[in-house]
């Protein structure tokens, strides 16, 4: 039994994991249409490399990674591309983003798979490129492209590899069931990882002690491999990367750093399984294990779901009762987000679809005032003072928020969970975080604008000065010329100058045409303004708007007059 450390705070919500563990991982019929979002990972969305009408096979790449931090996307089944357009995607905003729609042909025909059976004699670089090609992104929730995470160029060698099998959120059992049924593949995936990272001497699988069967399943495969299965008491949120690092090693990840900076790497256990499939079996990431649970569904179990399967398909298959359901959540009840449409597809990061009944997860109560009871501070795993953060968040005091380390908040929701006043603390923090980020961006932009403005002023000033200097020089030259050659040549100079200006001047016809253009454009403007005013008064707009419009009209009329007079002058 290895030593583990205890994180501060944390909560113990009811686990509700047994419901979905009664049956083994199941599979669903292939849906008619799959919608594969191009942005399923952190970083830039992938760029589609197929067009509408193309026929694709299962596992065929349909989108290339865009830039360094991105991941490829593959067709989850064989069929035809029927649309590439914006569709509702798995995001808290409920907004649309670019997706590829595949109409399945029902054959589920794979591309030619070519796996490597002997990875130990393959260079890490080659393995890495396989992982890149397979489009693997962290499957625990954040979706950070795995190949980027594993990319060499670390400040220091990785000596500790942590496999995150914590799964601390209530209801979710995707990892648990995956370990129970596919422990051997997982361990092989870990060995591939270890090989890529140059065999770190410390490899740990962190798992909560509420999964005894999974621990047992891992044991025979990890024996004598140097992989330690470390179990520790269940507490939410032990599965946070920072929390897990502390629990397993007693070290804290300094704020603003990534684990690699202290020689550690954290990989979700689902990801190791995907790595094994990619490397050994040559299968890119096209499906994942997702828990379907909640009282509003009759069947609660884990499924191996194709990425791109609409949630609707999953729900219908499990006899979903919309009347009983309080909300449909993608992810767990603590950090998952509610879905605004049932057309949203399953993505690489979807570990759970939770359809709780109203009794299970009631509708949100209205928030009462904060009484500073401090329960949130007790629960905070990062030892923040949530009640102070709330205070400053309401006051929009960005400086204080940052000095109270708002950005160390992992949004785990433990504070909101315990809050007796039902205050949506996490939403306050999220909103404040994005406000601060926006303000910082705006600051940068405004500084840039100021510099550009000042530079422009300077440039104009300089140009003005230069002109002035030239004029002075010319005057000087004229004076000298006058002094040297007397009055006779003066006439010549004047004549020459007149000739120059005449040459420079546009021909009268051109001038006339220009003025005519000006008049016609002015007329057009008057007309436009008149129209606007008419529509405004027809629509009985507010007086002030009409005032503005009529002011604009009179301005345009004046300009027209001016243009006309000039034209008249010129024609004369």
């Amino acid at each position, binding site marked *: 039994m290895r030593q583990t450390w205890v994180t501060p705070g944390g909560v113990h919500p009811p686990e509700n994991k047994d419901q979905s563990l009664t049956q083994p991982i199941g599979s669903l019929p292939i849906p008619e249409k799959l919608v594969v979002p191009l942005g399923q990972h952190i970083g830039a969305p992938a760029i589609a490399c197929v067009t509408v009408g193309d026929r694709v096979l299962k596992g065929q790449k349909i989108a290339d990674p865009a830039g360094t931090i991105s991941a490829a996307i593959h067709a989850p089944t064989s069929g035809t591309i029927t649309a590439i357009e914006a569709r509702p995607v798995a995001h808290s905003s409920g907004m649309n983003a670019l997706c590829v729609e595949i109409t399945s042909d029902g054959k589920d025909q794979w591309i030619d798979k070519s796996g490597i059976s002997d990875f130990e004699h393959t260079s890490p670089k080659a393995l890495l490129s396989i992982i890149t090609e397979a489009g693997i992104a962290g499957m625990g929730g954040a979706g950070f492209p795995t190949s980027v995470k594993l990319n060499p160029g670390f400040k220091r060698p990785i000596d500790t590899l942590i496999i995150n099998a914590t799964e601390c959120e209530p209801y979710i059992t995707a990892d648990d069931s995956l370990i129970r049924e596919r422990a051997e593949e997982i361990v092989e995936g870990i060995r591939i990882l270890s090989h890529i990272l140059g065999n770190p001497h410390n490899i740990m699988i962190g798992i909560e002690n509420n999964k005894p069967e999974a621990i047992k399943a891992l044991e025979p495969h990890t024996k004598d491999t140097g992989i330690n299965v470390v179990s520790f008491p269940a507490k939410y949120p032990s599965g946070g990367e920072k929390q897990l690092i502390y629990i397993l090693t007693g070290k804290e990840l300094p704020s603003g750093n990534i684990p690699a900076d202290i020689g550690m790497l954290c990989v979700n256990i689902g990801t190791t399984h995907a790595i094994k499939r990619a490397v050994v079996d040559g299968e890119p990431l096209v499906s994942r294990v997702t828990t379907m649970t909640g009282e509003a569904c009759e069947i609660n179990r884990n499924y191996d779901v194709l990425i791109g399967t609409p949630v609707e398909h999953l729900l219908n298959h499990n006899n979903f009762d919309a009347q009983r359901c309080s909300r449909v959540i993608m992810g767990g009840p603590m950090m998952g987000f509610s879905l605004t449409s049932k057309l949203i597809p399953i993505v690489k990061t979807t570990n759970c679809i939770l359809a709780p009944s109203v009794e299970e997860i009631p509708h949100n109560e209205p928030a009462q005032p904060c009484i500073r009871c401090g329960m949130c501070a007790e629960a905070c795993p990062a030892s923040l003072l949530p009640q102070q953060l709330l205070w400053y968040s309401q006051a929009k005091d960005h400086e204080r928020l940052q000095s109270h380390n708002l950005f160390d908040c992992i949004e785990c929701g433990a504070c909101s969970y315990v809050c007796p006043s039902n205050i949506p603390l996490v939403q306050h923090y999220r909103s404040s975080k994005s406000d601060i980020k926006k303000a910082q961006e705006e600051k940068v932009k405004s500084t840039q604008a100021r510099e550009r403005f000042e530079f422009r002023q300077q440039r*104009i000033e300089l140009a003005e000065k230069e002109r002035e200097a030239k004029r002075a020089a010319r005057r000087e030259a004229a004076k000298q010329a006058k002094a040297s050659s007397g009055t006779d040549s003066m006439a010549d100079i004047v004549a020459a100058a007149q000739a120059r200006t005449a040459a420079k001047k546009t021909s009268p016809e051109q001038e006339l045409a220009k003025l005519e253009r000006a008049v016609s454009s002015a007329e057009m403007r008057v007309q436009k303004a008149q129209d606007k005013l008419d529509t405004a008064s027809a629509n009985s707009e507010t007086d*002030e708007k009409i*005032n*503005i419009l009529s002011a604009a009209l009179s301005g345009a009329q004046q300009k027209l007059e001016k243009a006309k007079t000039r034209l008249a002058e010129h024609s004369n």
Partner: protein
Amino acid sequence: MSNVSLSEVTKNGLWTNNPALVQLLGLCPLLAVTGTVVNALGLGLATMMVLIGSNIIVSLIRHHVSDAVRLPVFVIIIATFVTCAELVMKAFTYELYQILGIFIPLIVTNCAILGRAEAFASKQPVGMAAVDGFMMGLGFLMVLICLGALRELLGQGTLLADMQLLFGPTAENWTLRPFGEGYSFLIAILPPGAFLVMGFLMAIKNAIDWQIKLKAEADKPAPIKGAKRIRTTGHIS
């Protein structure tokens, strides 16, 4: 700043810029001695006298004092008048003088007086400065009396008690006892009461101002939006 109308000065002193309720100046004596009407009246009158006197003198010498030393000069002028006031009270209302004690000399530190000298009298002609001093003093006095009356009434259930200290024996039976004998509610007399009553007075004033402002806003025509814009790039042809 040079042209200030008489009505403006009056309104300023009594209401809009009241030294006690708005500027919150001179709170120390204000809160300390307003236990009864007579105390408030005594201190208020003394302050008013000092304010008028110092405003006149400051205004008279305003062209002759350099900027760097104006504050010490003002303080000396104020101190002189305070000493006069103290001596006058000692001579004519000795008992009241004893009750008010240290708060009479402390008028020197009443920021309302220095504030007026600095903000108004040092920039205005003598007549206007005198009127300003009177009005500011009156405004201060009014608040003092309000506070004193309220606190006296709430705290010991009397009104105009001990007026003989200021007005002589004729005032001896001016005392009113609306709640009868034996009533007392000490906190109103004690310093916290002063803060509470003062707070309520300010709240009432703000509420009135709010109503006035709403009315004014309702009467005001809507502004033309964006009417005052200029071109930052106008100097370019």
